[in-house]
Each structure stands twice: as C-alpha cells, then as structure tokens.
C-alpha cells in the first residue's frame, strides 16, 4: 500500500484542478522476463469508495489505453492541440466509476519488457495471463478495490482481450474460495468477434454504405474465402483496389470524417 502512495499523481502538467484522486505506475507481471504493465487510475468524481471499478482496454493489437481510452474517449481529460495543457471531458465515465486504464501487453506505451524477444511473440494467451496477474497484484496495492463491483470495457481488438480476460477471471474465481475479483460483466464496442462473420459483415457494410462499387463487391465475394487462414492474391487485389481506388481519402474509422492531414 506504500507503493500506492508513491503512485499518487498530484497533478499532471497543464491539468485543471480536479477533486478526484489519480494514481499511475507499474505492476510487474513476470519477474523472469522483466515484464511490467503501466496503469493509470482516475477515481470517480464523487464517492469513489462506493463506485464500481472499470478496467478499460484498447485493442490494436499493440495500442495504448492511455492514448485512446483515457485521452480521447472515456477519461476525464482531453489534451489540447499543442499538448501544452489538458481540459476536462464533460462526459467522462469517471462520473460513474473508478477508471483503470491498462497499457497491455508489455511493449505497449509505457509498459515494457526487459526481454526484447517478448515483443516478437506476444499473443492472445500471454496477454490474458499477464492481465490477470496484473489485476491480482494491483488489488494488493489497492486493497480497497478487492471484492468491489468490477467490470471490463474495451473496443476493437479488445474484443479479444476483454472476453479472454473475463474467462481467465471466471476460471480463477472457480478455483479459489472467496475470490477478490468481483467481476460482474463486460462491455465492448466495435469489437473483433469472429474472423469469418466479421469479414462478411464488413464487406456488406462497405457495399450498403456505398463505399465500394457493385463490381468490386462482387469481385470480393467471388475471390475471397473468409474462412481460409490466408487470403488469396486475387482476394488481396480486390480488397486493395477497394481501399485504394474506391474508398477515397476518408478516415475508415469514421467514414464521414476526412483523413487527418
């Protein structure tokens, strides 16, 4: 718990005055390889001791929950254009919950490994295992969150991370009496769910939203076998044509928004 106080953030550079507490730092998840994950906790704006804990995970894989979840989605602060100061997010989710942002796996953002080969063989399994170890050790540092209502939230490739971590927690809880992680549920957005059905649904969206031509739509359906491990070159060519000659200069993550120049 002493480490908790060492993790306390008194104020971020350029931050407006706030009434909630925040902490950030490292939790070692593998001593042998020297893997440590970086977290940032922004507590609820009122009665944090009564509010649930929500762990937020971004996807990628390889993308940072500090960069996206905390700094442009659900966190209490937004960064201004010159990165000189922060301003408040009126719809921050820490109005309702204590938000725990985790940069996962090691190699993402400030999270690191002392074994550089770890960066070349990350995957779903080790990511979920390290995240479970992180949670158990983090709760030793913040014992007030043991047994607290706990939810996991995330988006995109965290459509893998979130249910995989949830499953690890459910299995861990089954194997331990009086388990400390009181997982109640999870919520995921634009989540990678099933490679085959997602692919079909994606091409359908491109056609129904007039992002691609009928000809290209037919060509993709004809040349792409979405259940195959590897796409054929004919399939790659059809999708490449769509993205480079029909999509245009849009932000594919928000199709009515121009790209960031």
């Amino acid at each position, binding site marked *: 718990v002493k480490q908790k106080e060492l993790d306390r*953030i*008194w104020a*971020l*550079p350029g931050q407006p005055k706030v009434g909630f507490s925040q902490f*950030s730092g*490292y939790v070692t998840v593998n001593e042998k390889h020297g893997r440590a994950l*970086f977290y*940032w906790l922004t507590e609820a704006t009122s009665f944090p001791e009564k509010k*649930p804990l929500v762990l937020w995970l971004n996807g*990628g894989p*390889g993308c*940072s929950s*500090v*960069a996206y979840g905390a*700094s442009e*989605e*659900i966190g209490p602060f*937004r*960064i*201004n*254009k010159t*990165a000189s100061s922060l301003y408040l997010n009126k*719809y921050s989710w820490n109005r*309702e*919950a204590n938000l725990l942002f985790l940069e996962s796996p090691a190699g*993402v*953002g*400030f999270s*690191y490994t002392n074994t550089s080969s770890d960066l*070349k063989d*990350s*995957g779903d*399994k080790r990511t979920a295992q390290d995240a479970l170890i992180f949670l158990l050790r983090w709760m030793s540092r913040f014992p007030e969150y043991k047994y607290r209502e706990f*939810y996991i939230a995330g*988006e995109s490739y965290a459509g*893998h991370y979130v249910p*995989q971590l*949830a499953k690890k927690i*459910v299995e861990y809880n089954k194997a331990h009496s009086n388990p400390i992680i009181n997982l*109640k*549920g*999870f*919520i*995921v*957005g634009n*989540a990678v*769910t*099933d*490679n*085959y*059905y997602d692919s079909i*649904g*994606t091409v359908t*969206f*491109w056609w129904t939203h007039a*992002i691609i031509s009928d000809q290209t739509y037919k060509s993709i359906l004809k040349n792409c076998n979405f259940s195959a491990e590897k796409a054929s070159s004919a399939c790659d060519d059809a999708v490449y044509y769509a993205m480079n000659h029909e*999509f245009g200069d849009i932000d*594919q*993550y928000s*199709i009515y928004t121009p790209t960031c120049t």
Partner: protein
Amino acid sequence: CTESYAEKYYNRKDVQKAMHANTTGIPYKWTACSDVLIKNWKDSENSMLPTYKYLIAAGLRIWVFSGDTDSVVPVTATRFSLNHLNLPIKTRWYPWYTGGQVGGWTEVYKGLTFATVRGAGHEVPLFQPKRAFTLFQSFLGGKELPKS
C-alpha cells in the same frame, strides 16, 4: 488528429515524471500503437463466440455496441457474428434515446445486450460522448437503454 496530441504530451519528460512512467528508460519513444507488436502478433483466436457462450453461462452482464460510421469493424460485422450465438430475444429491436434524439437501436437477448450508436466511428466515446455516456450508465445500472 487527436492522436498526435497524445504523441506529444506523453513524451514530455515532465509528464512522464508526474505519472511515474518510463522509469527504466525504455529504449523507444512512447507511441499510441506499437508497430512491432502488431506485426509480430502470434496466437489470435479465430472466434470469440465460444468464449461468449461460456461467459453467458457464467452469468456475466455482457453488452456489445457498435458505432455505425466505422468501416473497420462495422456494425454489420458485429451483428453477423452475434447472430450466430442464436440467443433468444428478451426485448425486441427498438430505438433508444438520449437528449430527445435517437441514440441508436438496441435489442436485448437472453445473456447479452446489443446496441448501435448513431453517428459514432470506431472510437464511440470520441465521436458521440453523450450517447456513449448514456450507454455506460445503462450498462452499469443493469437497465435497458431509454425508450424515450
């Protein structure tokens, strides 16, 4: 372009000091997404549907939402995948509201709630913060999304 603001802010020495970050002198700049990790990603499950079935059976509260202007993991992709869970419907498809506007549409299944968020891209809370907050409040409260 908000991502580039983060690239600047979190590489500031004073910010890293205030956050107790980068205490071991990581040999590369902080960045929003690691190219090394995504290029070398090893095991990745083909489908999360079996895990959903396991977690629904475990009694967890599960919500899935889709910003409807994202073309990378679009709403039709998620609907097509969830459809193959074959979950019984508890509350049939309806528009949900926030601020007197349609926030999206939703359907409640036995074990899972699905909702779209109107006018939101891949990062739903970035594009529609108020609608995302209403979604979050309903999820936390274990309530169905507002019908008016």
